[in-house]
């Protein structure tokens, strides 16, 4: 797969004169869904030589204005995946500046399950891949050689791919497809969503808009809960 990606990278750039990021940006969320929906393989070359891999079945939306900064999502994520509450092992990151003004006092950084995942592309062994069943971008621990190319390839800051220093491999949000410490998990449940104290997180099957704040949206419920005490949320 990695070879395909490398070859494709050249083809796309050379044949169309447009980078993949430009392509994704230009098409937008709806377009991507049309292009990628229903694919079950991890990477193909289309008729027009555009490389693509299967869309993820799900995406994590956040409402950063509604987040309370309690970090329960981070603690739940790490606990269900690793059996310990550990902010550094959480695949969602809440970063806060307590003396800053709302709403800039807090940011949520979650994996976008990118329709065109740089992390997958960067992996030399196929460890970082799109799961054939769900499309979620995830890591095969056994194949990871610890080169950290995926971590550096993630276009976002902080990188949504992280190094697990305990088990010595890269990891990222797998939409809870592999939570060995969550015995009674039901299909579609995410640890972070379940633990969230304000409903600031939500799983969607629709591919979010790839530009702007497509992943950080108004998830509702705000006014009822907050205005009891006069808090106004936009």
């Amino acid at each position, binding site marked *: 797969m990695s070879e395909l990606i490398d070859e494709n990278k050249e083809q796309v750039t050379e044949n169309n004169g447009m980078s993949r990021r430009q392509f994704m940006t230009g098409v937008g969320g709806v377009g991507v869904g049309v292009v990628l929906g229903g694919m079950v393989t991890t990477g193909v070359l289309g008729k027009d030589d555009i490389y693509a891999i299967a869309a993820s079945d799900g995406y994590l939306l956040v409402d950063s*204005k*509604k987040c*309370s*900064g*309690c*970090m*329960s999502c981070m*603690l*739940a994520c*790490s*606990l*269900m995946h*690793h*059996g*310990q*509450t*550990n*902010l*550094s*092992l959480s695949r969602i*990151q809440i*970063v806060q500046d*307590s*003396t*800053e*003004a*709302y*709403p800039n*006092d*807090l*940011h949520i*950084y979650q994996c976008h399950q990118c329709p065109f995942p740089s992390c997958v592309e960067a992996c030399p062994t196929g460890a970082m891949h799109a799961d054939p069943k769900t499309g979620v971008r995830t890591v095969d621990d056994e194949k990871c050689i610890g080169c950290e190319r995926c971590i550096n390839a993630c276009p976002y*800051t*902080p*990188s949504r791919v*992280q*190094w697990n*220093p305990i088990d*010595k491999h890269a990891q990222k949000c797998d939409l809870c497809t592999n939570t060995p*410490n*969550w*015995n*009674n998990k039901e299909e579609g449940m995410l*640890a972070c969503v*379940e*633990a969230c*104290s*304000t*409903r600031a997180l939500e799983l969607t099957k629709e591919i979010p808009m790839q530009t702007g704040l497509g992943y950080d949206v108004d998830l509702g*419920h705000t006014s*009822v*809960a*907050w205005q*009891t*005490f*006069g*808090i*106004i*949320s*936009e």
Partner: protein
Amino acid sequence: MANGYIGKILTIDLTTQEVGEIETAKYESWGGGEGMAAAIYWDLAEDKTLTDGTDPRNIIQIMTSPLTGTFAPSAGGRVRVSYVGLWGWPVGYLTGSLIGGRLGSMIKFAGWDGVVITGKSETPVWINVIQDKVTFENATDLWDLDTWETQEFIWSDVMERELGEWNYLGTGRDDGRTTQRPAIITTGPSAEKYGPWSALIHDAGQAAGQGGSGGVFASKNLKALSIYGTGGVEIADPTGLMEARQWVRGFSASGNLDDLKTTAMSVPMGSSQGVAAVGYPEGMKARVHGCSGCIRNCKGRTERKMGNESRCLDFLWYSSFDMAAHKGAKTDAVLVGCDQVQRLGINSYPMMSTVLWLKALYENGILGVGKQIESSLPYDLIGEEEFAVALTEAIAYNLDIGADLALGLWQCATKWGRLEEDVASGWLPLQASGYVHHYDARHETEWGWGNLFQERDHNMHDFNYFVFWAPTIWGLMGMEPEVSAERMAEIISSKMVPFNDDPNLIDHSDEGIYSDSMIKLVRWHTYYQKYYKESLVFCDYTYADFINPYGENMEGVTPKAEEWLTEAVTAKGEKFEDGIALGRKIYNLERAIWTLQGRHRDTEVYGEYNYNPSAAPFGLATYEAPYTVPMRIDGEWVYKSTNSRSLDKVKVEDFKTRYYAAEGWDETNGWPTRATLEELGLDYIADELESYGKLGA
């Protein structure tokens, strides 16, 4: 075995700059927090009779619990700071304060269950803990900085990359990375100048305030502790913890966002989120904010970054004065008041009583320019930003009367020759042990009893929500009670294991407040406080949850939640009543320490205003309203006003005698007896008390 504990406690000797470890297992039987700290204090204190909190031999401990660092709801983000305090009367007892935010969790993520600090540095320092590495940094240039400036400096010093990037805590690939900031606890500027008032502040508005923790830091030449880690907390039953959390959440606003209950009850667990917003001026945009792992989210951060993370008395100390000066509207003055106490690291709790006292002295011609007590603070501007700034800076920088106030309130009143008169009138309502009136012992009597027998204002609202707030609000609003007095008594009593066979525990009638049932309530409350609230660090703003609008038949999560959550984390098989028993053990250990510090029946006395029929009947705190409380009269439960009630000194003394007897203490002096200590497995403490001639007979 994964049980919530990390396994080691960090020890730091500021005198020698030596660093060491204590195995947590040695103290695990005390739970964590206050219990663990008291046990460690007993073992490490060079002189247990020490009462001067500024003595270099004082020990300051920042102790977590097995739940800290988890998402046990409204328990995972708290930590207890313990020390010999600077405020108490007649001496500074071993005391402490709880603090929220992310400090406790970060201590555990750095690989520690707690931090024990002894000795005194020769020069100003701040302590930098990164995982298992401890360094002592020069704090000379930080000494005069406020709490926010100090944290900004340390964050920029410790973090190699910007906030929001992965910071590497080492040079190797596997040394750990985090997007988070170090958690810092710090004093305000030159906190030795106002030690008894000085709180330790963490982030914008998390504080350990009672007893002058910041002053203890300053006395050790210690400005701040920064802690940074990338580890985790291993939990016995992750699925069980998730299940327990979700069950608890069903009783909270968090779990009922589509069907919020409107209730006049100031309930703990079931209250709406963002309760801090009651302190904001109208129209303020803000987010609700919660400590690590919380579901209650009682705090907030505002669009103008004023009042961030403040709550309750941070606002209340000035809000009523602000509103009085502005036709009933809250203005930025209240937020300025918040930020002043947070930035200067001043304990907000005594501030309201201080303003009321100064206002009374000023309006009666005793205080002011050319008056008996000379002062040029702008008293005509009480309620305006200018006065909030002037008063807080007077205390922090010893300006005007600030040098006297900074001694502490009972010390200041003594210096001014006004202690006796002003406490008797209620102008200066020192309720017990030198701490100001929080809730009224004459009416909500259980609050007062709890304070009388402990070393500080216990600040535990377990009964307060229901005994005072709910019936008082129903009465003020002319509402039909949402829970009848009989049902309230039934629910609360049923949850007070092992005293749950007594249906009269919350009887606040004129007879009930001195009854044997009330003794049981005070005992249960103290035991619950000592273990669940201050050792396992369940948040006071959420627990105990007796009555809950989301519960079946209005029943809250206590005691099931405490037991379930603890078991999911520790798998010790501990029942709720085991925790209550352990609370009694912790209380007796502390009682022994207080006894060695000079505590005696004769020093467990109420301020005279509680006995004085001519003192103001209520309203010694601006948030108080005429008290309506539950009581049983002629066999019938009712809610009834107690506004004309004063305490009876003879009955109070009789209550003390019976309370000491119920605790198994010497009735003549309130000291623990050998029989009681041996029953609790504290033989070694009995031996030491005896060696000092302070074992109860």
